[in-house]
């Protein structure tokens, strides 16, 4: 099969088939459109409510972007701090795992009280759920540098800074990229949860539309949130490919 067929045509056929079956199942009333709105109703909402949805999407994109960048910067730097000293590492590492399990929906109302309504609470929520995977995967990467290379660096009396920049960070790059993929998806989820209670963005539209029994609008908003997440993850994939293609086997294939 030609790569073009495999990568573009087949997914397209699958998409058209699924959407048509979905539309039909609702049209012939096997499923009520009130339970599962048909694709055309969702499309209709996307068109009819475009101004509201577009404005909300911009707000959400901003919050997700800020959460992601904060997670990236603080996640990697705290992993490096943990890595520099065994004492610090043993003292704090268990908590980085523990905090990954924080049920964000339960503490989100408190974030609103602590940080205020709107974007600050949303960013806090997105950051809290997305930072720990970055810490954990960066740390794993730092700890799994090639022992032979470590010996080599020791032999040449490389400074700690040199070892960090030339050995440990590069060798943990594939791990960091993996952590960032997880971070991107979680930042979107965390931000949407924050928006339920912060009262802005796509999450707020979902919350309001649900109370108004506008299930079509809920789906339209969910679709946009998912596309945002997809876009973010695909961007990370691209960056990862550009950074790693020349030397790491994980990206030594075409995308």
């Amino acid at each position, binding site marked *: 099969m030609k790569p073009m067929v495999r990568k573009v045509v087949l997914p397209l056929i699958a998409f058209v088939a699924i959407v048509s079956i979905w539309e039909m199942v609702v049209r012939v009333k096997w499923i009520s459109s009130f339970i599962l709105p048909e694709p055309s109703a969702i499309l209709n909402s996307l068109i009819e409510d475009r101004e509201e949805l577009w404005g909300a999407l911009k707000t959400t994109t901003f919050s997700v972007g800020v959460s992601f960048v904060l997670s990236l910067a603080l996640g990697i730097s705290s992993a490096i701090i943990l890595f520099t000293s065994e004492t610090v590492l043993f003292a704090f590492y268990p908590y980085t795992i523990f905090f990954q399990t924080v049920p964000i929906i339960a503490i989100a*109302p408190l974030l609103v009280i602590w940080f205020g309504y709107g974007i600050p609470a949303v960013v806090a929520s997105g950051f809290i759920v997305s930072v720990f995977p970055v810490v954990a995967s960066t740390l794993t990467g730092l700890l799994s540098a090639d022992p032979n290379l470590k010996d080599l660096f020791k032999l040449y009396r490389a400074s700690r800074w040199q070892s960090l920049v030339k050995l440990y960070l590069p060798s943990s790059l594939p791990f960091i990229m993996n952590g960032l993929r997880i971070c991107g998806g979680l930042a979107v989820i965390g931000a949407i949860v924050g928006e339920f*209670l912060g009262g802005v963005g796509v999450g707020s539209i979902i919350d309001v539309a649900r109370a108004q029994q506008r*299930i079509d609008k809920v789906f339209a908003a969910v679709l946009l949130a998912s596309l945002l997440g997809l876009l973010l993850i695909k961007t990370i994939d691209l960056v990862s490919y550009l950074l790693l293609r020349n030397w790491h086997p994980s990206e030594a294939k075409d995308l």
Partner: protein
Amino acid sequence: MKKISMLMAFISLLALADPQPVKLRLALNWKPEPEFGGFYDASLNGIYKKEGMEIEILPGGVGTPVIQMVEAGKVEMGISNSDEVILGRSQGAEVVSIYAVYQTSPMALLTHSERGFKELKDVFENPGTIAAERGLPYIRFCEKKYGFKNVKVVPFLGGITQFLSDKKMTQQGFITAEPILAKKQGANPKTFLIADSGYNPYLTVVIVRKDFAVKNPELVKKFVKATQEGWRNYLKNPALANKTMVSLNPTMDPETFQEGAKAQIPLIETAETKKFGLGYQSKERWKELASQLLELKVIKTTFPAETYYQ
């Protein structure tokens, strides 16, 4: 063979003596609280059983999609509100309301009495923050009637934390619960009913699928009769149902249950229900509500008022 036939005879005798009750599920839209007292009473006192049915009451919570559950047939009955029914119908849900607990909506705004507000419109005319579920039509109604020039509306987080943490905060709540809880926490709330604005949906209505109501008219009648009896009991003596509900919902203490049950009596028992029976629904009220929602542009079309309830 003889044994089997004897067994059969015995079973049929049993069935005669105690006909199998019809099993129905009633999905609540919130945790067990005084607003559901009559249903628990009718269930605990065997009133439903007397009418040949067994009602399983399923507690709900934040965002329980009751109309969707009823529409999809996951439950036979559910608790909703009359404005939700009209919104759902306009989106294609085939449901109908058969019993309306609250004749006057218990939805209220809690303000700190230190602010000295005299009526509902003061809440909107003075600078402050209002925590409300912004998807609910009542808040749109208030926006249209009073305007939001002076107030900031933020999402309602549930509970009374928002109210307690800010002296300029107004929050939504049921007059049967939040004001009592706020008082317990040392606040001094002054409460205004939303109904005073002219927006007064029936709250806590029982909904069923339209085809269920058409196929089982007798069952619906019996359910309404038993529910009325349950509510009459609960209005007089809420102790029994409260005891069960406290065990199901320990976040609310027995005293608040007691006070809530008392506070809601005038909202449930009105001149109209004394004439037509508890749970009464009038065509005029449904019609007025539908046209209010149309005017607020939360729905695009209305149906004849008599198709919303029965």
